[in-house]
């Protein structure tokens, strides 16, 4: 399988001398769900956010489908971001817009602001949005305002918005951390199945080790800004978890 995303020697420091990422080397194939686990503050979020450049990288290269995206900006950056979908912990919907409008937000990169303002979206986009609403089971909610939805419903809208981009890579920054256990499982199922159906790699950054083991095809464990485990979920042992999270009392 060919490599879609290749990260080499990536570092990042928000404050000089306090590195958050200390040299990350990771390659991602064109399929499969990768869970990035690690305790808070180890740079998981930073890593995911650097990939679509919501955070600027320090040293190193990030090559996405043959294009180094670590130094691009302006129009080039916007065009890159259109190809990468992102799901957020706090859903980040536009609260006062309808569910349909929130989905169409995923197409904003392809439309002039004026056309977007006048809601002149191509018919194709609107049909795609209705299809995705069926997929996430919210067909009857198209015209409801996003702030009237529950957490799980919001996150499903967030995923549908990312899929509206027809992304070539799907990133999710702690998508289940604000949700209850049952909804978390449903959200992970949706991310996994959509990744497979659309034949795109999915990168999920998460806290819940059991959930990661259950859904991931590959687990990346991080601690202190470095990758300390990278492999199949079945090979993740308690020793690895001790290394990733520190201590062992919590494992009992």
């Amino acid at each position: 399988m060919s490599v879609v995303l290749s990260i080499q020697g990536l570092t990042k420091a928000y404050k000089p001398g306090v590195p958050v990422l200390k040299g990350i080397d990771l390659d991602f194939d064109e399929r499969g769900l990768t869970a990035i686990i690690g305790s808070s503050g180890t740079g998981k979020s930073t890593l995911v956010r650097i990939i679509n450049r919501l955070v600027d990288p320090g040293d190193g290269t990030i090559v996405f489908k043959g294009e180094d995206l670590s130094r691009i900006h302006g129009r080039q950056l916007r065009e890159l971001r259109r190809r990468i979908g992102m799901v957020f912990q706090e859903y980040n919907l536009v609260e006062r817009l309808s569910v349909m409008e929130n989905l169409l937000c995923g197409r904003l990169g392809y439309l002039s602001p004026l056309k977007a303002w006048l809601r002149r979206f191509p018919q194709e986009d609107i049909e795609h949005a209705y299809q995705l609403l069926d997929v996430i089971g919210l067909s009857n909610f198209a015209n409801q305002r996003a702030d009237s939805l529950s957490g799980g419903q919001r996150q499903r809208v967030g995923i549908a918005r990312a899929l509206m981009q027809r992304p070539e890579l799907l990133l999710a920054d702690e998508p289940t951390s604000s949700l209850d256990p049952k909804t978390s499982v449903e959200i992970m199922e949706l991310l996994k199945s959509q990744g497979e159906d659309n034949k795109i790699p999915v990168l999920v950054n998460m806290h819940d080790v059991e959930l990661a083991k259950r859904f991931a095809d590959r687990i990346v464990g991080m601690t202190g800004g470095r990758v300390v485990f990278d492999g199949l979920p079945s090979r993740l042992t308690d020793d690895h978890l001790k290394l990733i999270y520190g201590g062992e009392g919590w494992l009992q």
Partner: protein
Amino acid sequence: MVSHELTATPLMSRVWQRHTLAQKLSRLSLWLLIGVAVLLSLSSISVIWEFLWDAPEQMADMGSRMWPLDFPYYPATVHAALLETFHIATLGTLFSMVLALPLAILAAHNITPHAGLNLFAKTMLVASRSVNSLVWALLFVAVFGPGPLAGTVAIACRSVGFVGKLLGEALEEVPRGSIEALKAAGATQGSQILYGYWPAVKPAFWSIMLLRWDINVRESSVLGLVGAGGLGMAMNAAIDLFQWDRVAVILLTIFAVVVIGEVVITYFRRKLI
């Protein structure tokens, strides 16, 4: 046991005080300072005591001159002047909206991450607010000559600072998350403003505009005192001619307009939010 340990501490030492000695002293000196300031300002406004003692009599006299009200004066002159006041207030508010929108966007540091532009916009907004409507009207009467045009531009110039400041602050309080999501989808700055910022500030925006329109109706009713059109012009003429019965009609009109405006605006604001 715990209770033993508690009684072991002598009760006398557990006195609770709201203020320490230093706080008491500083509070006392603050009160003294306020007292001195009041006395000083009283002595500097040079009250003419004869006139002050005379005031109740004068008020009664003016009241009697106002009564009975000259109601036929309303359809003859006041009504047209009232409409002019409305036009000044409404057009001025609309103009200020057009001018304030770009300034508010430039002043909001989350949309315009450029300290120089922020400072420029904020300076413009402060300049607009630092000059009273009446003073703006005096300036524009000198430029455009007396009449409603001067009043309209004066209202617009004064309102820009008000609308721009409040709208800029509303923009700065828009949650970062939704904007980040639009950015991640590759939306341009323009789309981010129209799809992310605008829906979030829309209720605040209309609320600010309604409030400013309400203020502008009241302000434009006095702008005529300096020749900038509207009710004030009629009032000025009536005062100059000592026609207190007509002045009373105009004052009553302003009062009625403000009350009706309050009711209407409260209704719309509730519908909008």
